[in-house]
């Protein structure tokens, strides 16, 4: 009988050329139940596998993953005390303990809700439901392998941030792979979003929906609506998505955002609350719930969310100082500055190594706590200490933190430091009118309305002059001077997206006209990677990245470079 059944199976996939050598791979089996480990080991041995390591807990798995780059990891979701399977996966990915070719299979006793939530950043290659037999294991391993082959060049281009090339590769694969068409289209739509090409993303989502009503595609269309400012339409679409698939968690976040954009903060909060109920063990979710509650002054709910966030973060690499800082604020509002200070000390102890700005942020929170609990003397002292911290380094945190800090400093009576901070923010965002209004409001509140207006105008002009001078040098053919000028402009305004883009463009233009240089290439690449972190999804990013990577000399004769458009200038 043996022969017949396997002959029949073989007939389904008569592609011996694609056979993978599973015997030569290295394996890690993670399960807290010894019987299951043995069973899986036997199943792997029957595939010929010889190198099989085992771990009985998440901690043990992490130790082994730190030592060996496994080809295949089979990990149970429920691992008893300590890290669960999802936390093992997240930590392994974030610490780069898995190769791009590694296969991670998540095993569970029953269909997990996580597998349909869709938005999880760190998805395993497949979810397997017990019982797992050799045959099923082999089928799924082969399938994951084939999918990795289909996606390998696309993933590589994606990792290099060459989104437009990645999207073209998707098109090529779609033509050849009917079975992966939907996944490829999903990838392509994401690439188009990342490249600032919403029209082409929309087209791709519509192509999916013409085949099947996939909720992620519907949500993709809604997101594009929202980006167009059509919040009410987007809200309705997200609600339809949730009605169709109540576990599609990304739609909740987007729906909350739509409510927020329409100024309906209570509604946004109740949506975030529902999402946190569905996915109670997600650290980022509890954090954003806590922060939203805090903004709305719902202290009780903020406290619950931040405490939960700290608790579930215990074994997770995604644990965050935000929960400690947020909870400290809550304690301040509840007039318990003592616990607040303990939390701030704990945050600095736990996160000092990985978050260089934690000292600054803890000090801001300390000032806010004292200020909110009415201890103005200590609040002022924190303000002075903050000013000293700022004087010690030219580095500035992100815009939100800067604004928070300026507000606090004004409130406790410090004058110069917050003015400098606000001008810094404006210089780095000279074309963001919404932000200018926000900054003006902070000046107004500090009774510096008129002076603030002048300061904002001055800061904007400074940035514009800096940018236009660089473009002028470039236009008059003084390329090395233009490059050098933009280098200085970048140093002065490290967060100004338009200056960064222009700087990259002038570097590329220099190479196109005067020849490729590894140094200039690396410089431009660094600048672009920095912009993409600051403001992802910019069309100019994708275009410049593609031009830059096309300059890299290849084995084959290089393609003819397309003429570059001029860097943008700006009227003062």
């Amino acid at each position, binding site marked *: *009988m043996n022969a*017949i059944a396997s002959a029949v199976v073989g007939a389904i*996939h008569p592609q011996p050329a694609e056979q993978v050598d599973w015997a030569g791979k290295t394996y890690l089996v993670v399960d807290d139940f010894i019987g299951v480990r043995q069973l899986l080991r036997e199943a792997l041995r029957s595939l010929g596998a010889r190198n099989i390591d085992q771990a009985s807990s998440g901690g043990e798995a992490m130790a082994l993953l730190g030592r060996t780059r496994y080809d295949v990891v089979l990990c149970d979701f429920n691992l008893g005390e300590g890290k669960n399977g999802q936390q093992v996966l997240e930590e392994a990915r974030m610490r780069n303990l898995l190769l791009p070719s590694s296969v991670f299979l998540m095993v569970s006793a029953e269909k997990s809700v996580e597998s349909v939530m869709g938005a999880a950043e760190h998805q395993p290659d497949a979810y397997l439901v017990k*019982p797992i037999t050799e045959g*099923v294991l082999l089928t799924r391993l082969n399938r994951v392998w084939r999918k990795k082959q289909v996606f390998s060049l696309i993933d590589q281009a994606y990792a290099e941030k060459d989104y437009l090339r990645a999207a073209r590769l998707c098109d090529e694969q779609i033509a050849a792979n*009917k079975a992966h068409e939907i996944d490829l289209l999903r990838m392509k739509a994401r690439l188009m979003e990342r490249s600032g090409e919403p029209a082409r993303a929309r087209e791709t989502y519509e192509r999916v929906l013409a085949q099947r009503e996939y909720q992620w595609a519907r949500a993709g269309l809604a997101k594009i609506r929202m980006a167009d400012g059509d919040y009410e339409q987007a809200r309705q679409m997200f609600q339809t998505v949730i009605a169709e698939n*109540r576990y599609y968690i990304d739609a909740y976040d987007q729906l909350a955002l739509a409510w927020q954009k329409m100024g309906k903060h209570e509604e946004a909060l109740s949506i975030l609350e529902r999402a946190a109920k569905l996915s109670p063990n997600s650290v980022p979710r509890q954090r954003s719930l806590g922060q939203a509650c805090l903004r709305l002054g719902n202290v009780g709910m903020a406290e619950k969310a931040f405490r939960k966030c700290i608790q579930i973060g215990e074994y997770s690499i995604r644990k965050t100082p935000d929960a400690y800082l947020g909870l400290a604020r809550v304690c301040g509002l509840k007039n318990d500055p003592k616990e607040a200070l303990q939390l701030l000390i704990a945050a600095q102890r736990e996160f000092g190594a990985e978050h260089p700005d934690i000292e600054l942020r803890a000090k801001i929170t300390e000032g806010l706590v004292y200020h909110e609990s009415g201890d103005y003397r200590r609040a002022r002292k924190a303000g002075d200490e903050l000013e000293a911290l700022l004087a010690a380094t030219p580095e500035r945190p992100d815009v939100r933190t800067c604004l928070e800090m300026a507000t606090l400093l004004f409130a406790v009576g410090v004058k110069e430091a917050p003015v400098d901070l606000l001008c810094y923010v404006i210089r780095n965002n000279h074309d963001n009118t919404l932000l200018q209004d926000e900054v003006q409001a902070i000046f107004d509140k500090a009774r510096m309305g008129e002076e603030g207006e002048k300061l904002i105008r001055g800061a904007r002009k400074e940035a514009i002059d800096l940018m236009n001078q660089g473009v002028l040098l470039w236009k008059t053919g003084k390329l090395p001077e233009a490059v050098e000028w933009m280098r200085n402009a970048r140093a002065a305004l490290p967060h100004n997206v338009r200056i960064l883009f222009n700087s990259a463009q002038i570097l590329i233009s220099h190479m196109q006209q005067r020849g490729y240089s590894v140094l200039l290439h690396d410089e431009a690449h660094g600048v672009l990677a920095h912009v993409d972190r600051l403001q992802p999804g910019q069309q100019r990013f994708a275009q410049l990245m593609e031009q830059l990577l096309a300059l890299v000399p290849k084995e084959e004769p290089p393609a003819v470079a397309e003429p570059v458009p001029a860097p943008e200038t700006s009227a003062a």
Partner: protein
Amino acid sequence: MEDPHSPLSLFLASTAHDMKNSISVLSGTLERLLVDASPETEKAYPQMAQMLYQTRRLNDNLMQLLALYKQVGTADYPLDVQPLEVGQLAEQVVALGRVLLESRGIRLELDVDPELVWHFDEDLIVGVVSHAINNAVHYTRERILLVAREREGWLEIRVEDDGAGYPAALLEAGNAALDGQAFGVNFLTNSAGLGLHFAREVARMHRHRDRRGAVRLENGGRLGGGCFILHLP
């Protein structure tokens, strides 16, 4: 739905997890023993084959109960529809049933369009089809046929056997229940009731435009015995 974080739910979830582990180990061990043995060398071979069959029934029942507890058939169930080649579906069903079928001396024949891509919840459909095959193991004489092809815009999956076919009463009660009419009390208490109810709910959850999946029982087919038929839009 029951609060998924209540003590009862947590006990149910962790106990189910435990039972699944035990059944996994049981059926895995039995499969290994059967693969290494043959009826000629192993006196207890038929009993071992019977044990594997019963273990599979236990597993199927547990899976179906868990799915019902998770409200299969309603919007509360985390349905996971993905595109999949029908060949991949068949490959897994065959892999799950291989040792059991061999141990009972039953031949599984396939008539499958392997490259046809369809959209469905893989775990649920593999569960339904493989349960239908396990059932057929009990009623067939020596052959089971698995058909999976597109027909008039639907994916039609048929599990046919060469046994005596379904008794008239079961056909009538079963199809009435499958049409969505009330279950007869006798049918509910019948062990086949859970499996059919599960299959119907799974089928109905699969929707495309205005169409819903469905399940039907028949006698006849190419092998002249019972036929379990699943249609997916």
